[in-house]
């Protein structure tokens, strides 16, 4: 559906609602301590290793536990199923497990479950979908009833990041019996919530795990029951939210979120996420003889765009400008790099120096958030660069990039919520198709950082890489993305930058 018509319709809904404000909605949810939520996604399976969507991660964090928990506010690692852990050497980790945990089906949690889960998911024959979550694991060994050792293929400093949220532990006996297909429909974990009903593509019912172990870093949930519904149309979700059929939705388009701020019973939070946007410029001339081969041209692009204005006015909420090729909280990310302030005159001067006093024309690619692309196009036009927008489906953009057709692209990266620079910078400067810089020095630094567990060495090489990326203007980092959450005023809910809502931390006011 067209965005404009959606905007009008949501406006009409708000107007209709306010017109009849006298008819106060009945908040059925609060009295029975049930939270009604919705998202647009239809999950293929509730087996976290066989779904790729963010919503799969949300379900996972509620019904399963990982060995480690990452505090969403302080980013600190805390014990969860593992009481403690230590690095034995570069490629070996040892975990001491809790002995007081049971799965939702009554199965006792012990070292066998951890060993089974890790050996199952790291076995390539089992075709786990998000390879990066598991590909660093060689295998796991049982050292005692509540003690395991995880062997890595090679040194992998971000291991804890993955162990804290992306590697849920499954009950070995039950999983072996029902397989992924059965498990995906009737999942069993140790988490704060258990699943009591799955109507695939329609609804998932979560109920509080009354036997959840005390002392868990996630804590005992306050809300008894969560009913999730899949509603593909945002306008419909908004209508349900207005009438009390839903209490919480997210990923609401900004213009609609703005309208919903007028609603007396709803609150809108436009929270920053780890997703950042950036322009990639063909610095090596893969597309032929492009102006972007010249440093001054790349710097001119960086100076031409008022990123602050777009971030503030168009993205809105908690969005902020980023200067380095990473999300600020990520391990290894620094802000102390060359900054390109908004200065169209300087941009024009740089272009003239590079031999383009009258600018040039270029195809400008992208795959999402077209309005931001339009704003950038406007700024580029002001300094003489005529950017023709070509917005494609992601897979088509990927094909075009691979075929060396893309000289200028607006890309984004969400890092899967992983708070380590290896998940973003390392993914884009590896001499692969999406590496627009092909700078051996940068690649080497990043490679070094990605396989070392020496934190000081890592910080050092990442800083070098980020500084060079900024100096050379290989990327024009833009700003952070926001996610719009709209929910009942009666709900106490806090969004976090990894954009994984945690309802086990929520409660009714």
């Amino acid at each position, binding site marked *: 559906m067209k965005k404009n018509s959606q905007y009008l319709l949501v406006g009409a809904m708000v107007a209709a609602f306010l017109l009849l404000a006298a008819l106060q909605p009945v908040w059925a949810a609060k009295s029975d301590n049930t939270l009604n939520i919705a998202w647009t996604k239809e999950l293929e399976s509730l087996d976290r290793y066989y779904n*790729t*969507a963010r919503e799969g991660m949300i379900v996972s964090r509620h019904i399963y536990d990982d060995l480690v928990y990452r505090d969403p506010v302080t980013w600190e690692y805390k014990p969860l199923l593992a009481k403690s852990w230590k690095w034995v050497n570069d490629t070996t980790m040892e975990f001491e497990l809790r002995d007081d945990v049971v799965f939702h089906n009554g199965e006792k949690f012990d070292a066998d479950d951890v060993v089974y889960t890790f050996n199952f998911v790291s076995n390539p024959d089992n*075709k786990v979908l998000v390879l990066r979550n598991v590909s660093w694991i060689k295998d796991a060994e049982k050292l005692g009833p509540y003690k395991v050792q995880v062997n890595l293929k090679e040194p992998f400093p971000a291991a804890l990041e993955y162990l804290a949220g992306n590697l849920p532990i499954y009950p070995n006996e039950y999983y072996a019996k029902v397989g992924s297909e059965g498990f995906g429909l009737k999942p069993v974990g140790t988490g704060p919530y258990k699943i009591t009903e799955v109507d695939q593509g329609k609804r998932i019912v979560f109920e509080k795990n009354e036997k959840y172990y005390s002392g868990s870093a996630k804590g005992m949930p306050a809300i008894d029951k969560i009913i999730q519904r899949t509603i593909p149309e945002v306008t419909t979700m908004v209508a349900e939210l207005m009438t009390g059929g839903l209490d919480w939705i997210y990923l609401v388009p900004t213009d609609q979120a703005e309208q919903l701020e007028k609603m007396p019973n709803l609150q809108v939070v436009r929270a920053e996420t780890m997703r950042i946007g950036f322009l990639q410029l063909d610095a090596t001339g893969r597309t032929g003889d492009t102006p972007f081969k010249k440093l001054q041209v790349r710097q001119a692009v960086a100076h031409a765009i008022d990123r602050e204005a777009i971030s503030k006015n168009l993205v809105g909420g908690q969005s902020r400008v980023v200067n380095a090729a990473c999300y600020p909280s990520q391990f290894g990310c620094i802000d102390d790099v060359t900054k390109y302030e908004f200065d169209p005159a300087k941009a024009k001067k740089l272009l003239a120096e590079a031999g383009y006093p009258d600018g040039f024309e270029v195809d400008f690619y992208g795959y999402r958030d077209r309005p931001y692309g339009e704003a950038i196009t406007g700024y580029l036009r002001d300094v003489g660069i005529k950017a023709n927008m070509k917005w494609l489906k992601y897979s088509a953009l990927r094909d075009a990039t691979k075929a060396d057709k893309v000289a200028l692209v607006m890309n984004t990266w969400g890092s899967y919520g992983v708070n380590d620079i290896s998940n973003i910078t390392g993914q884009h400067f590896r001499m692969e198709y999406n590496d627009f810089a092909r700078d051996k020095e940068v690649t080497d630094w990043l490679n070094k950082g990605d396989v070392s567990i020496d934190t000081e060495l890592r910080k050092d090489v990442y800083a070098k890489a980020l500084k060079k990326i900024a100096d050379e203007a290989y990327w024009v980092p833009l700003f952070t993305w926001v996610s719009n959450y709209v929910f009942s005023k009666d709900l106490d809910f806090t969004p976090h930058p990894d954009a994984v809502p945690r309802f086990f931390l929520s409660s009714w006011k």
Partner: protein
Amino acid sequence: MITYTVKRLLLAMLVAITVSFITFMLLRSSGDPAVAMAGPDATTEEVEFIRVQYGFDQPLIVQYLDWGGRALRGDFGKSAYFKRPVEEIIGGRLRITMTLGACALTFAILLAVPLGVLAAIRPNTWIDRLALSISVIGQAMPSFFFGLILMIVFGIMLRWLPISGSSTWKHFILPAIALGYYATPAIMRLTRSGMLDVLESDYIRTARAKGLRAGSVLFKHALRNAIIPVVSLLAVQFGFMLGGSLVIETIFAINGVGFLGYESISRADLPMVQAIVLMVSMFYVVLTFLSDLLNAFLDPRIRVK
């Protein structure tokens, strides 16, 4: 008659094969299925891994023959997305779409047939114009817009009916109206013109001359004859509603076949899309085949041609 039936049957099968072949090729050329399955943030290795796992690296014709062979045996493969048999998933969703289609069709008949009859009794009067306007609006207004208007009025303002979902019969009322209204114009106009023809015929005049009551003439004599072409139109409309309820299903969050088809396209779930396209086209093929046979049975001239 037997030769004719066999000929028609062969033709129908040919249509089915052609449709499946064309959709297969179009789907494969629309983008890299491995990239679509792996998701936007996947690495190159992840994409390559999926490509090999699902056989997307094989030549297209091999992939098609492989699929076609299994489909003939009733095995449409596993959904690339759900990892479960395609027929199992479609089966569950088909019931909802059928229910919605049946409700919508009922609504369309209840609205369109009386309107058509009224318009035919008083041609070129304000009643006729009003009936025509109602049906023209149905055709002109996009169904998503109409659906949302219904939602605002009956869901938000009046709070009479649930807004979305499919758990009770009440949930089907708004979507059935939104979907059925779109089919109204065609049914209404065919009823009207059929009634106009019949009302002018000799036997109606005779019936009236006998002094039968107007209502009896209208419904017992006229409508029963005028409705025959409408019935065959309804079969086609029903087929349309099964395949074309996508927008309505999306808006009202009714997870039926239309929505499943749409989502499967964006997920590049090829086995699923293939099966749905084949199912919907087979539905039409079967309906056309049956109506061909019926026509031939009624009208011997068609058989001889």
